[in-house]
């Protein structure tokens, strides 16, 4: 019994940390899909890029850890704006198939570039000394870095939600998600709004990829391998919401950790089945609005 409780706590802990990462990576995808209706399968590319930027800044540029995180966010956000203006923007009206193929093309390219620069091995993450140890709580050990992830993630989520609820930018995003034509007619520059939202969402993905580099290993097949999970978070949570993917990410983070711990022979099978059942019950996800 004691043993079981202990493993329960441990699964919950690691699950929440994993869920936080999933959320930070996926939230941008939910918002951009809700806002622009763009099926961006290449979202994981931004997360992977964030991870590579983190390891590079730590190992080669000698940046301290927090600065490396910030650089990951900024560079990925900036890069995504270039992509958005040059490429994505041409396909907003192009239909699902074109968007899907285009973003698969981006994945192929990103994968190849990652392999050319970094090789196929996964990138080691050299955490700062203070985060390497274990945290002692109620007689159990918790890896300090995961505690940091949870706290940092929670702060980020709070900031994000506050920002979207309270700022002018947030109000415009919400208006445009609700009804784009209406938003345009009251003078919101949707093109700029798309760009800013895309940058923020991609930047967050980069940050999430960097933050989670120790949990979701950074290697070239990252965007293909983890796409299903990012999409599950978005589809289960519902498009265009902040809360939906949060709940979905935590549930999936915990469920996935639990499955791998208790029934490893099933792998991700149960998660996929649960996702299918949920989407059949609620095609628009938990918090999405049914059309």
């Amino acid at each position, binding site marked *: 019994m004691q043993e079981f409780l202990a493993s329960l706590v441990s699964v919950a802990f690691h699950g929440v940390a994993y869920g936080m990462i999933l959320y930070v990576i996926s939230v941008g995808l939910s918002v951009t899909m809700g806002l622009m209706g763009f099926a961006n399968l290449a979202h994981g590319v931004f997360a992977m890029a964030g991870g590579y930027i983190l390891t590079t800044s730590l190992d080669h540029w000698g940046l301290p850890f927090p600065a490396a995180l910030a650089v990951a966010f900024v560079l990925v956000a900036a890069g995504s704006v270039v992509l958005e203006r040059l490429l994505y923007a041409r396909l907003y009206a192009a239909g699902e198939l074109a968007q899907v193929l285009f973003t698969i093309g981006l994945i192929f390219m990103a994968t190849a570039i990652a*392999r050319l620069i970094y090789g196929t091995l996964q990138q080691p993450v050299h955490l700062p000394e203070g985060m390497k140890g274990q945290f002692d709580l109620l007689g159990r050990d918790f890896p300090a870095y995961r505690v940091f992830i949870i706290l940092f993630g929670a702060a980020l989520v709070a900031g994000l939600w506050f920002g979207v609820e309270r700022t002018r930018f947030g109000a415009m995003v919400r208006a445009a998600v609700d009804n784009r034509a209406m938003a345009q007619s009251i003078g919101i520059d949707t093109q700029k709004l798309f760009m800013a939202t895309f940058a923020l969402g991609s930047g967050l993905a980069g940050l999430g990829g960097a933050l989670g580099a120790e949990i979701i290993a950074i290697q070239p097949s990252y965007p293909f391998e983890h796409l299903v999970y990012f999409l599950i978070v978005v589809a289960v949570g519902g498009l265009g919401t902040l809360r939906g993917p949060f709940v979905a990410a935590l549930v999936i983070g915990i469920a996935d950790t639990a499955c791998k711990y208790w029934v490893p022979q099933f792998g991700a099978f149960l998660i*996929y089945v649960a996702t299918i059942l949920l989407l059949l019950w609620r*095609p628009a996800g938990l918090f999405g609005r049914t059309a």
Partner: protein
Amino acid sequence: MRHNGSYSASPRIGLLEWLPWAIGVAAFFLMPEYLSLGARILIFILYALSLDLVVGYAGIVTLGHSAFFGLGAYAAGILSARFGVADPALQLLVAMTACALMGLATGAVILRTRGLTLLMLTLAIASILLEVANKATSITGGADGLSGIVVAPILGLFRFDLFGKTAYWLCLAVLFVGWWVTRRLIYSPFGASLVGIRENHVRMVAIGSPVPRRLLTAYTISAVLAGVAGALLTQTNQFVGLNVLSFESSGELLVMLILGGVGRIYGAFIGPVVYMIAQDMLAKQFPEYWSLGIGLLLVIIVLFARDGILGIIDRLVALTRKEAR
């Protein structure tokens, strides 16, 4: 060159449409050292054709078509390796049945959805099969792949030889049947209504068309065709690897199809030919540059030539006609 079945389109098979078959037969005699590549190309043409039916004609965007290809491949392989059934016709038949059931069961539930949800569901179903194939090692061989597959001579007469001659003819013959069936479907009233659904889903419902049933029929037929392709792959390779079920496999197939041209029948022929020959020449030596090039090509196609190689040819033909005048 577009093949849109409709009430005013003549279903006559044009002279040009025999060209692929002439090439297919000629290739056997002219390039005997490339027969195994040739057989793989034929298999992928069938696979791409099945995808064209759902994506190009019915307008269902799926990321999980590898589910059916893989299921067909594993059904044939398991039947032989685990149950000792070596008869190739029976293997094909079982693969078709399995895929028909799978197509019906999954299609019935997922085709009610659209957009991201549908994408997600197709991907999730393929992922489930991949996960099952990966974990059920005692049946599927897991990550090591399934070996020990035996294929008896076709009709008791034609033995599968080392050079892949029999396999090549088998693939060519099966593809021919698959092509004939698909073409027939596309030119039928059913095919015309699929195009209607692709063009305007809402209006099709509003003119009283049983849209969900039509889509389910198309999806199931396509599943069967993909399953046949998968089973053929098993028979020619006498091995099944996990990669037949992977998302990359579905993605690659989409690439081949759009490369040739979507919704045109023969795009599914040209795409795999070009892609796989290029892959054979380049991918081994320069794997990174290969996928970089594919990615770049895909982006360029989507941005500038969305109707693929055949679309470009169409436009060139139209241009020269204008010039000639």
